[in-house]
Each structure stands twice: as structure tokens, then as C-alpha cells.
């Protein structure tokens, strides 16, 4: 077991593609860290650099207190579960699990002991004599995990281990992996594009975008205080709603009325004309079911709901609205980066299951203004979170110790000096 330290790690491929840019990360001993991001964000490349299957272009990788940049995979003593399991088809399950031990010339008796222990843990006992070809997907996945845990490795690396399983099995294996990691207490790095896995498994989550770390934080922090539009849009399902607003003094003009943010959420909006407001679906509610004690913390507005999806425990309502062209283009761009496609600008609103708002009629909705974020539409930076951080109210981002804020645009730290009246030109 060991800590893993990444310092200014870069990966540039032969064709000039810069896949991973200046990644700094401290993974503590025994920690479960998730690398997450849309496809092509460099998360797998990063993992393969840690395990040694990919050369590191520049930077330093330390495992424990040793620099391992130049070491071959076998000298790093890490174990890895591949996306497609990579089981040895000519060996039985037993020999598949024993393979790393055989390579290290472990005595037969110890091999047997450890394979049986791993098989016990993963409930593979009755399959030990079978070949991988005769196993189901979930069983193969467990064999791959058995091969990883049988050895006393310094850390476990998972490369999208659940993406080939069906939804139900995926849920079960997710819990199983979490249980296993807690039980063994081994440093784990886990790559996924599935945000549910990211949120449920990790002690900390690293969100990557185009090879750049966006935010390193606990799942809760990521959800409640995303540092920029990208993280806000990526984490959460259904995703956060973004509403454009024009600034006039303290007031924000939105397509749904004129709102004033409470002091706890307000950011320095001087010199800005347009901002994006972000609100998660559950920040909304049917105005008629909101209790009077909290009603004052939000605003009530009228909107026409065109579709309602009733899920039993809650229901999602969709409210289409018109957004300015440039904002719409920007949101569409964001959606593309997140591997989805925006067809129209709409609010997704989570309503209490008891709400009886009918489809297609104007309804009265309530928005909790204490849960609204203000984003800079150009840099994507979350102004609310920055303001909180400046006032020292927010939980500091763990891990990214230098407090770097990886918003893509320049001048994010001294935004008060940003040229006033910099309205987003039609793009």
C-alpha cells in the first residue's frame, strides 16, 4: 500500500496530441480516487501512465516515496482491472487468479491459500476449474478482480471495470467494489465516465476535461459547489439547469422574472451584463406544496410545463423557454462536450411526487434562491463558489492544495478588474 503522487504530469502523443496537461494530484494511502470525465478527456491515459503502459512525456510520478517514471509495469507492483477484463482464455479461473503469484514464483501452498481466499471473497469457489469462455460477464469481471486482489499490490487501478455489464449487475458490482476496497483498505484509482459510479464510490473525485483537471473534491462538494459550468453540467442527473440573466444592479433579469439573490449566494456582479444562473432540478418545487417557513427564501414564478415524467418517488417536469441565441449556442457547446445533445433550452424541474400540476397549463413554480449558482458565461467560472471561497465560507478544495482553479479562460483570479461591459458577442 502506498500513496501515489502526480506532479505536473503531461502526455503528448507522437502526432502532437496533448492528451493530459499538467496534472497534479496527491492520492493518499488507502484513498479511493475516481477519475471521471466525458470520453476523450484523458482519464484512461492518465491511469495507463500510472500503471506504466503509457510513457510519461513530462512530470514526475511517485508511488510511495519512489520515483517510478522509468520503471516497467511489473516493477511498479500495481494491479489493474481492464475494461474488457483481459482474462487468459487458456487458463482456468484458478490459474487466472494465480497468474501473478506464479510469475513471482510463490510456493504452491501459498498460491493455493491466497487464490482460495480471493475466490472466497468474490464467491468464485465453484467456478475455479472452469475456463473464462464458460463464464458470464459478471463472473468474468469477478475473476479479473480476483487476479487483482490476490497479490499484495501497492494500489488497485480500475479502467471502467463495469461498463460492459448490464445495469442491474453494474449496480451490484459497484457495491461489491466499494465493500472490497473498504475491507482491504488499498489505495485505489478508478476510471469511469459514469457519474453515478463516480459519486457513489469515491472518497474524492477528479473531474477531467480535455486533459485538464477541473476540480478535485469529495462527491458532495462537487455536487454542491462545482467550480465551473463544465463540472456543474457533468455532475448530477438530470443535469443542472442553466438560465441566462441580465444584470441590473443587484437584480437579475431572467426569462422567468426578476430575481435578487440572497447575500449568501451573491457574487460580485459589478461590470457584468450577462450571467448564467445554475439551479439543480431539486432546487425547484411546485409552489403550492412549499411550506411557508422556506417560501421566503425563494421566488415564485409562472411557467408552462409541457411534459411531466412521474417516477413514483418524484416527478420531473419540463419547461421549455426561449434563450438568447449566443447563450443557447454556448449551452449547446457545453452539451456536446458532455457527450450529449441539447435539442432545446428547457428547465428540468423535480417536483414533489404529490404535486398534481397538469401538463400543458401554466403553473406556479418556486425556486430556492439559496441553491442558485452564478456562472460567468465566458469563462464558465462559478462566481458564487469563488465569492464563497474568498469570504472563506466554502469548504476548501481538498487535494488541489495549491487552490488552482482550472477555469479555461485567463484572468479568473482577478475578475474584479475585468473590463466592464464585456457582453458576450454573438458567437
Amino acid at each position, binding site marked *: 500500500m502506498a500513496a501515489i503522487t502526480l506532479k505536473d504530469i503531461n502526455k503528448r502523443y507522437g502526432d502532437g496530441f496533448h492528451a493530459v496537461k499538467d496534472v497534479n494530484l496527491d492520492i493518499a494511502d488507502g484513498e479511493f480516487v475516481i477519475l471521471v470525465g466525458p470520453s476523450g478527456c484523458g482519464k484512461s491515459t492518465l491511469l495507463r501512465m500510472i*500503471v*506504466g*503502459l503509457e510513457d510519461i512525456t513530462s512530470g514526475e510520478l511517485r508511488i510511495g516515496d519512489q520515483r517510478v517514471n522509468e520503471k*516497467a*509495469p*511489473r516493477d511498479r*507492483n*500495481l*494491479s*489493474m482491472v*481492464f475494461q*474488457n*477484463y*483481459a*482474462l*487468459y*482464455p*487458456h487458463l482456468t479461473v484458478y490459474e487466472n487468479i494465480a*497468474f*501473478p503469484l506464479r*510469475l*513471482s514464483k510463490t510456493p504452491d501452498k501459498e498460491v493455493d491459500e491466497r487464490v482460495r481466499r480471493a475466490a472466497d471473497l468474490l464467491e468464485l469457489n465453484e467456478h475455479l476449474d472452469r*475456463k*473464462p*469462455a*464458460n*463464464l458470464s*460477464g459478471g463472473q*468474468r469481471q469477478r475473476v479479473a478482480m480476483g*487476479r487483482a486482489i490476490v*497479490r499484495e499490490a501497492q494500489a488497485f487501478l480500475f479502467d471502467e471495470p463495469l461498463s*460492459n455489464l448490464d445495469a442491474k449487475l453494474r449496480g451490484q458490482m459497484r457495491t461489491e467494489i466499494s465493500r472490497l476496497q473498504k475491507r482491504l483498505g488499498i489505495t485505489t484509482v478508478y476510471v469511469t465516465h459514469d457519474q453515478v459510479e463516480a459519486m457513489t464510490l469515491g472518497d474524492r473525485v477528479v473531474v477531467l476535461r480535455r486533459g485538464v483537471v477541473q476540480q478535485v473534491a469529495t462527491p458532495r462538494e462537487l455536487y454542491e459547489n462545482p467550480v465551473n459550468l463544465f463540472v456543474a453540467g457533468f455532475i448530477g442527473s438530470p443535469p443542472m439547469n442553466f438560465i441566462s440573466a441580465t444584470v441590473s444592479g443587484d437584480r437579475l433579469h431572467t426569462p422567468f422574472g426578476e430575481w435578487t439573490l440572497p447575500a449568501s449566494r451573491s457574487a460580485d456582479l459589478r461590470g457584468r451584463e450577462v450571467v448564467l444562473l445554475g439551479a439543480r432540478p431539486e432546487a425547484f418545487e411546485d409552489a403550492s406544496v412549499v411550506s411557508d417557513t422556506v417560501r421566503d427564501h425563494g421566488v415564485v414564478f409562472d411557467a408552462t410545463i409541457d411534459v411531466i415524467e412521474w417516477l413514483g418517488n418524484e416527478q420531473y417536469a419540463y419547461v421549455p423557454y426561449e434563450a438568447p441565441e449566443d447563450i443557447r449556442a454556448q449551452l449547446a457547446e457545453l452539451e456536446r462536450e458532455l457527450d450529449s445533445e441539447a435539442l432545446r433550452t428547457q428547465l428540468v424541474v423535480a417536483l414533489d411526487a404529490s404535486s398534481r400540476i397538469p401538463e400543458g397549463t401554466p403553473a406556479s413554480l418556486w425556486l430556492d434562491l439559496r441553491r442558485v449558482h452564478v456562472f460567468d458565461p465566458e469563462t464558465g467560472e462559478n462566481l458564487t463558489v469563488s465569492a464563497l471561497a474568498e469570504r472563506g465560507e466554502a469548504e476548501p478544495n481538498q487535494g488541489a492544495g495549491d487552490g488552482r482553479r482550472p477555469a479555461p479562460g485567463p484572468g479568473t483570479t482577478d475578475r474584479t478588474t475585468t473590463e466592464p461591459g464585456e457582453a458576450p458577442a454573438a458567437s
Partner: protein
Amino acid sequence: MDEGQLSRGTKAWWWVAGVVVIVYALFPVAWIVSLSFKTPSDLATGNFLPTNWVWDNYDNILAGDAQELFLSALRNSVGISLIATFISVVLATFCAYAIARLDFPGKRLILTTALAVAIFPVISIVTPLFNLWRNIGLYDTWPGLIIPYLSLTLPISIWTLSAFFRQIPWELEQAAQVDGATTWQAFRKVIVPLATPGVFTTAIISFFIAWNDFVYGISLTSTEAARPVPAALAFFTGASQFEEPTGAIAAAAVVVTIPVVILVLLFQRRIVSGLTQGAVKG
């Protein structure tokens, strides 16, 4: 082979078609076998079955006049073919592995050259080889045949094996390396077992090519020192010079076919066994 799903009619048609193919393919073989049991006087009657079943022809080649000629030829054929096959498979395995796995300049050149060599007509290089071999002392020796056989077997071995290697998931080797294997161990413990069916298929093809060769065999040998069976058959003589040695040749042909059949039966299971099934998600 789940035939239960086929309807009765379809099944019957498959049987008929199968029998037709088998008869077409095996009839000449059956004829040769029948010939080998005939007496010389029986040869020209045109009957399929011999009037008298006799072992004379086999006696002749294995213990009689033609014994010396045949047995030494058999020994030469087996030895030369096996050695040529072995060398070609070993070399081709390394070569194909490099072609399938590594990126190096000249990769395409190797493949095209191999193909070009395979296309080259054997008959056109026999005469120069004959002269060269006589000058450097390889004429009528085992190496003198093994080397030209390699030029026949290597190209096809390289092509089949590199196709095989390309199908083996690359990740298995990486997994082995992460598990603690050196590049060599990963090759030996993971890639070789998976490639075995491919290697055996290649070996059989190579063996047949060497075993069946006639042109080199007859041109580059002159005595029993290296003459292989196909060439030796041409030197069989009848009881008198007016008598064709058909019976003896037929018997020799049958004997020569036996090792090939055994070889196929032996390796069949290894060839058929699933290649990379279950390695990755399926």
C-alpha cells in the same frame, strides 16, 4: 453442431450434398488403395475391386526389390519435411509476432517480399540452384533440400501467423506485464498458448508443402542420400522393363498418405479448439 434446429428436409439435403462431396474427394484415394492390392495382371481389367486381394505390392516396397529405394526415401522425406517445418514455424512465429505487434520501418516490405517469394515459380529457380548447390557442395544433401523448402514454407507461414497474432487481444499482454511478467514471459505464457492453434495449422500447411514437393526433390538429389518419396516414386521399376510399376507406386502412395492422415488427426483438436474465446468480454 446443433443439428436439432434443422428441419428434416434440410437435413436430408445436407447429407446428400455431404456424401457427394466425400465421394468426389475420396474416390481417387479409394482407387489408389484398390490398385495397391491388385496383382499386375489385374491392373488393366478396369474393375474397381481387385479379383484377388494380395499384399505383393506392399511386400515389394517394404521388403522386396524396391525396399531400399522406398525406405530411404521415406526416411529422407520425413526428416527433411519435419526439419523444414520446424525451422520455418519457429522463424515465422518470431517474424509474425514482430509484424503484428511492433511498429517498425520496413514492415510492409517484409510482407510484400514474402509474398513475392511465394509467387515466384519454383521451376525457374531450380536450374540456377542446381548449379549453385553443386558448386558449394549442397547438392544431394538434406540441407540442400531444406533451404529451398524454407523458401516455400516461410512466406505462407509468416502470412498465416501474422493474421493469427493480430487476432490476439493486445491487452492480454499488457495485463500480463502488469501482473509482473517480463516481455518474454508475457510472450511465452500468454501469447504462445493462444497462438498454438495457429502455429499448428501453419505447421501442418508447411509440412504438406515440403512433403508434397516434387520439383526440388527430383532436381536437387541424385542418390538415396537425400531423395524424398515423391521423387523416388519416379524411379520405381516393374518386374521387367516392359511392365509398369503401377502397383508398387500405388502401394507407396498409400504408405506416404498415412503419416499425413495421422498428422491431421493428431492436431485436429488443437486446431479446432477455440482460439481466444473468453479473453475479453463476449
